[in-house]
């Protein structure tokens, strides 16, 4: 059977998907074991037992200074910032993306601006951001929003802009005003795409979150990673990154699930 036509069952697919990941893990273990054999205090590629040791204190023991379980307070702080950043970005992307995509005058006026903002690397202008947003939580959330929202806006605008013209015409002949058309035709059809855009932005969002936490923070996953980078504690960094990947994967799966259950029409077998 031709490769294009081979359908893979659900459980098989999970198994096959795990294979390369397990392979990578094994490769890592071999290289790490090798390096550890040469240098018993190897820091760069620690073995799992070193990671477990390093993490145990962070996960299960209260920090003497703050009286908190560092790992969990890091996770909570980062998730709060990420959630807020994603929520603001998603809402503004929906709003601005729709306007840009469906209203030619808005596109003419603000299209260039959004492209411009999308293009300017925000981390280059940090001092100005500090003035506007200060150094606290606002700044961190703002960096996430500035980092990912313009991309999402453009993506949604592009998607809405390419809705078949017939649909727009049809809606108008059925009496839809601009507002009704946005509410009932554009928004619902933008939703699955919006979820897709959030999924694609998840990686960049973490990047900006970690950058923000690297710049000024007292708690957070990115804070901890950049802090312990000062003494090359890969035995903490690697578990933290794995934890971030796991969190991101869970969010990703959750988004897929939402999209499938709420917008089934967009996932039907397209005949």
């Amino acid at each position, binding site marked *: 059977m031709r490769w294009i036509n081979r359908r893979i069952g659900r459980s098989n697919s999970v198994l096959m998907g795990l294979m390369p990941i397990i392979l990578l893990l094994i490769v890592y273990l071999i290289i790490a074991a090798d390096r550890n054999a*040469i240098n018993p*205090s190897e*820091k760069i590629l620690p073995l799992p037992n070193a990671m477990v040791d390093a993490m145990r204190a962070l996960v299960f023991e209260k920090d003497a200074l703050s009286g908190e379980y560092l790992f969990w307070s890091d996770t909570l702080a980062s998730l709060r910032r990420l959630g807020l950043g994603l929520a603001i970005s998603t809402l503004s992307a929906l709003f601005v993306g729709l306007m840009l995509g469906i209203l030619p005058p808005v596109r003419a006026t603000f299209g260039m601006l959004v492209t411009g903002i999308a293009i300017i690397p925000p981390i280059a202008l940090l001092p100005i951001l*500090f003035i506007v947003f*200060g150094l606290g939580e606002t700044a961190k959330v703002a960096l996430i929003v500035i980092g990912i929202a313009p991309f999402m806006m453009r993506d949604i605008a592009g998607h809405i802009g390419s809705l078949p013209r017939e649909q727009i015409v049809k809606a108008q002949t059925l009496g839809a005003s601009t507002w009704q058309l946005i509410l009932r035709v554009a928004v619902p059809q933008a939703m699955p795409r919006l979820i897709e855009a959030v999924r694609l932005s998840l990686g960049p969002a973490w990047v900006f979150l970690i950058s923000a936490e690297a710049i000024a923070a007292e708690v957070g996953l990115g804070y901890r990673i*950049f802090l312990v980078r000062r003494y090359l504690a890969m035995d903490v960094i690697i578990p933290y990154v794995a934890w971030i990947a796991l969190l991101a994967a869970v969010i990703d799966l959750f988004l897929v699930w939402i999209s499938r259950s709420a917008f089934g029409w967009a996932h039907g077998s397209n005949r």
Partner: protein
Amino acid sequence: SQGPQEDAAPKTDFKIGWSIYAGWMPWPYAEQAGIVKKWADKYGLKIDIVQVNDYVESVNQYTAGQLDGVTVANMDALTIPAAGGKDTSAIIVGDYSNGNDGVLLKGTNRLADIKGRQVNLVELSVSHYLLARALESVGLKMTDVRTVNTADADIAGAFTSPEVKAAVAWNPQLLTMKKEPNAYEVFSSANIPGEILDLLVVDTATLKANPNLGKALTGIWYETLALMQRDDEEGRKARAAMAQLAGTTPEMFEAQLATTYLYAEPAKAVAATSDPALIETMKRVRDFSFSQGLFGQGARSADAVGMAFPGGRTLGDKDHITLRFDDNFMKMAADGGL
């Protein structure tokens, strides 16, 4: 593999990393001025002076074996490569910070007012150490302040934010931050002379296999220092070039040099290295680092990392000596034996 315990074979190509700091600017200048090539040729070597913009990354890369040597502060030499099991030799003690690091407060010039404030600084760096020493000097404890980790590249920008009321930083950021209206320097490394040292370290195994590398580097260093210390046109030109390499103006650079105590003559550096006060300093740095967990979760005592000093004196675990203050090459330079 780049395992440091391996007996490194003799080789001729070396990479030395540096990052921007007043006391280290002679290195890139020496490269541009041809001094590096001159000495390298003399010993039949090829020495590459590599700039790493991010200081921590330069030390990390050295630890990872990507670089044969790196410019580093004494505390970081101890906590990153040495604590990471990489046997490291400090062959040049270049200078100590004599005001290059400082504690800044806004709206007050009394250090004691720092109590209860939020302090922005690069955590776990020499700034942290300086803060600890400053607090100690007025009878405060680390828990009396709240520290916020702030990236060194951004601390100058962050300090302009009205939220930030206290910060610890080093030059050149410190100079920029001092200009902020209402900012006072309440404590500086000039209050603890000789404790924050700037070194050139190389991999011990590489050095053993290639003693000529140590000779060439020491030769380069002291020839360049001699040049930049001159008060004539040439000396000025050299300093101006270094200023430009650091991305600043000659005036700013001179101001930074003024707070850097350069061991311009090798004899002075040798004296400082063999002074028992160095052991005292390193013990204090070590204890601070250990209390902050910088030796990693595995380390059970401050003695986990062993250090060796000239004259066979040691500190910490004698069986695991990974940081060696090696004055042999500076001695050779002092004796004109290069």
